């Protein structure tokens, strides 16, 4: 599900968190599978759920950015993320997930994330002027990929993205960085570097960058 985050494969001790976190990821505790960690939590190990939730932090963030209609508001995304983890914790503590018989924790986790995300999409930010609700049925929900598949796909997307970024001009790179920070065209216009450009120009620029990305991906 979380294509491109580079976080697949954690269940077997591999991780793309990068940098210092990689060292921690490879500690013996983190080599345990999700299901083993749940069993450890039930046996009274206080840290087990911390390790488990930390694995899903970045993936959940990516999932929400990809699937929900909230694109710019980081604070709102954090609230939804909290709701997801709280629900998972509540259900785990209530014994709703059985590591031996309920399939993978990963699929179970994403089912909860998907339900909460859809709930927000349909009920909380949908309004008469919200155009996004109309397109929700156009894009089918994706199936949960295995950690290995995720890792391969993430590596591929990341490699292609870095290839694209190397080809961009300094102005285009700055524009992409601002978009990555969640800035709107209007906010970007407020930046001295882009103050002389109209919103339409910025839109066209981003569109051209997208075309470049598409070309390289193919």
């Amino acid at each position, binding site marked *: 599900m979380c*294509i*491109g*985050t580079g976080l697949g494969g954690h269940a077997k001790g591999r991780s793309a968190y990068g940098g210092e976190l990689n060292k921690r990821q490879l500690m013996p505790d983190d080599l345990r599978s999700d299901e083993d960690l749940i069993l450890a939590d039930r046996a009274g190990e206080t840290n087990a759920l*911390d390790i488990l*939730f*930390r694995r899903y*932090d*970045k993936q959940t*963030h*990516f999932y929400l*950015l*990809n699937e929900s209609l909230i*694109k*710019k508001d980081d604070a709102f995304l*954090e609230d939804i*993320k*909290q709701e997801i*983890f*709280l629900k998972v*914790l*509540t259900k785990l*503590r*209530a*014994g*709703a997930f*059985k590591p031996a018989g309920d399939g993978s924790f990963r699929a179970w986790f994403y089912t909860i994330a998907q339900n909460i995300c859809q709930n927000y999409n*349909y*009920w909380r930010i*949908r*309004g*008469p*002027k*919200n*155009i*996004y*609700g*109309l*397109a929700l*049925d*156009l*894009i089918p929900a994706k199936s949960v990929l295995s950690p290995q598949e995720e890792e391969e796909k993430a590596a591929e*997307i990341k490699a292609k*993205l870095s290839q694209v970024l190397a080809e961009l001009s300094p102005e285009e790179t700055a524009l992409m960085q601002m*978009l*990555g*920070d*969640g800035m*709107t*065209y209007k906010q970007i216009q407020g930046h001295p570097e882009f103050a002389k450009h109209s*919103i*339409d120009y910025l*839109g*066209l620029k*981003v*569109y051209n960058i*997208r*075309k470049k*990305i*598409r070309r390289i*991906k193919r």
Partner: protein
Amino acid sequence: MKNKCEKYGMAITNYVLGEDLRMPAEELFAHLRVCQKCRDELVDWRETYAVMRTEAYYKKPKAQKKFQELLEKIKNLPAPTLRQAGQPVTRPTRTVLDASSEINSAAKDIYKFGKGYTGGNPEIKVPIPVIRKKTYYKGYPFYEAMGTLVRDKKANYTKDKDNQPTHASFK
């Protein structure tokens, strides 16, 4: 066909970024419904943008700190009642009202959902399975409630060749 899709390219870019589409949203969605290529592009760009946003977010030092705070917060909330594995789940039962109240409540919920979903635009048809999924009433009162709405001239619904309702629109 290529030029036609080109026209929607910028709208797709802006749609994912949450910017103004520069064209009626319905026009874009009507095109997306029939064009697999543009749908793929939308999904592809959405993924790319989500990767960019996620990477940028996790480069900030506050991201890890915030997650630690989140963990502390949810772990300190009062623990739910523990249930032993294997014990049957007891779900709260819904109070069943009398038939007419049940139908009226169902009609109210369906109408509320439909109005919100279509944004008050009666031209847009909501698929019946979506209404079923998103309203509490999935069983008996459903069609009765639709009937009530139709009688009150608040809704229309279309039927397929098997005479089963497929889509509803709300006035």
